[in-house]
């Protein structure tokens, strides 16, 4: 959709006709006030703004400035300025404020159509690239990609974090009986269910590792949000009653049945970790590194042979509200290369019916 702001009636009608001849929908306003009062300011559906400069009240350059500085808008529209001002200083001012092009009136409709089509095509290609790329990125950095005011976090930073490792138990045994496409479907379903659970609790899937994944929680109550998410994940894979409610509509019964025959093991630890972009010059991954992460991975491995699907460390346990969960001390565990053992706790889940393969 294209928004045109032009107060001069005839020019508005003719420019609107020229825009509509490109096959695009056009909404016209006669002043900045009308536009800002409408729902179209900040609307992601607006692909392009065509702005006259001389308007009653607030002029087109001021509108351009506000649109470019709008923090609510993730994707910026293309902006074309229209004016009978041919002075270089006015054109330069518009370009400096972020206009994509400048047409001197009277506008040649053929040129305007060509320009609009080319700009929209480029913008759509850019958005498609970003969307395609976003699928492969952790949620915490997705928004940074298109935000011009945010520096991409290549500089490492320390954070208080709850790190969770999730693994599909005995997945390799199960995978032997499946074809590769069925295996891919099963993994995608596993991830889809976990992603939505993690997103609901404002956590981040940091990385995928075969049949497992690493999740992080930062900010307020990160340990509690992490443990609750882990419980929710285990419940999805553990009780038939629950899986009936969580089965995605797009998933076949047989795929879902294969999935719920599996169970998950989860290890959780909290503490300071460094968020770092690691990798080579042309390919990097954003991940947490440090002892906190290593211990969480170790804790997940300790769930093998345990009656608990979720094990947490003493550090995480101490961050939880007293009495919020049923938690039992399990054992002390030695970690290779560390002199001090860590205490492990098991999280009890009501109605849990662990399915064995």
């Amino acid at each position, binding site marked *: 959709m294209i928004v045109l702001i032009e*107060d*001069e*009636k*005839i*020019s508005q*009608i*003719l420019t609107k*006709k*020229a825009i509509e001849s490109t096959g695009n929908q056009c909404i016209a306003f006669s002043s900045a006030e009308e536009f800002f009062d409408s729902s179209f300011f900040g609307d992601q559906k607006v692909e392009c703004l065509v702005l006259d400069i*001389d308007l009653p009240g607030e002029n087109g350059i001021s509108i351009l400035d506000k649109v470019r500085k709008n923090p609510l808008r993730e994707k910026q529209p293309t902006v074309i300025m229209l004016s*009978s001002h041919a002075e270089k200083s006015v054109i330069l001012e518009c370009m400096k404020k972020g206009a994509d092009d400048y047409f001197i*009136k*009277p506008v*040649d*409709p*053929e040129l305007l159509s060509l320009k609009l089509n080319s700009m929209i095509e480029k913008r759509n290609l850019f958005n498609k690239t970003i969307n395609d790329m976003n699928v492969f990125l952790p949620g915490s950095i997705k928004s940074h990609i298109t935000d011009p005011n945010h520096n991409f976090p290549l500089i490492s930073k320390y954070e208080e974090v709850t790190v969770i490792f999730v693994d599909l138990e005995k997945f390799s045994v199960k995978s032997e009986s499946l074809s590769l496409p069925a295996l891919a479907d099963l993994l995608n379903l596993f991830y889809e269910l976990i992603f939505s659970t993690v997103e609901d609790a404002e956590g981040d899937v940091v990385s995928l590792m075969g049949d497992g994944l690493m999740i992080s929680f930062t900010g307020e109550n990160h340990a509690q949000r992490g443990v609750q998410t882990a419980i929710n994940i285990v419940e999805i894979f553990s009780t038939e009653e629950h899986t009936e409610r969580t089965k995605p509509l797009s998933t076949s019964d047989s795929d879902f049945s294969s999935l719920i025959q599996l169970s998950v093991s989860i290890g959780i630890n909290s503490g300071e970790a460094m968020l770092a972009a690691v990798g080579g010059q042309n390919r990097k991954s954003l991940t947490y590194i440090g002892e906190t992460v290593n211990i969480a991975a170790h804790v997940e491995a300790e769930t093998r042979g345990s009656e608990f699907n979720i094990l947490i460390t003493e550090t995480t346990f101490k961050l939880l509200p007293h009495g919020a969960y049923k938690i039992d001390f399990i054992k002390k565990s030695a970690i290779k290369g560390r002199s001090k053992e860590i205490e492990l706790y098991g999280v009890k889940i009501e109605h849990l019916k662990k399915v064995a393969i």
Partner: protein
Amino acid sequence: MRVITSNCAQNHKIFNEAHIEQYVGADEDAKQEIFNLFLEEAEKLKATLMSSLELKDFEQTRFNAHKLKSSCSSVGAIALANTCKDLENFAQTNELSIFEQSNIEKFENICAQTFSEIIRVLGNVK
């Protein structure tokens, strides 16, 4: 003395009918709608412009001349658009004090020619 330089002789044509066809093609109804709207708007703008000229109100004159210029450019009224551009420049440089009565007469004359030419074209629109 600075004079308005745009006149019928210099612009060869007072009105370029082909200009509007770039936008509306052979759509006679659209042409009629635009020309009628132009006559209505331009008459109003001319009156407002004359009154700001009389008051020697630089900013209002510049604004009104700019608007009329824009309308004229949109429909292909070349001579009047150029006249308005000169008037806008006079106002912008605060030189309306030396704007002569003869220039006002010239402006009114071009307005009259433009309007009658458009009325003539409008008569030919089926």
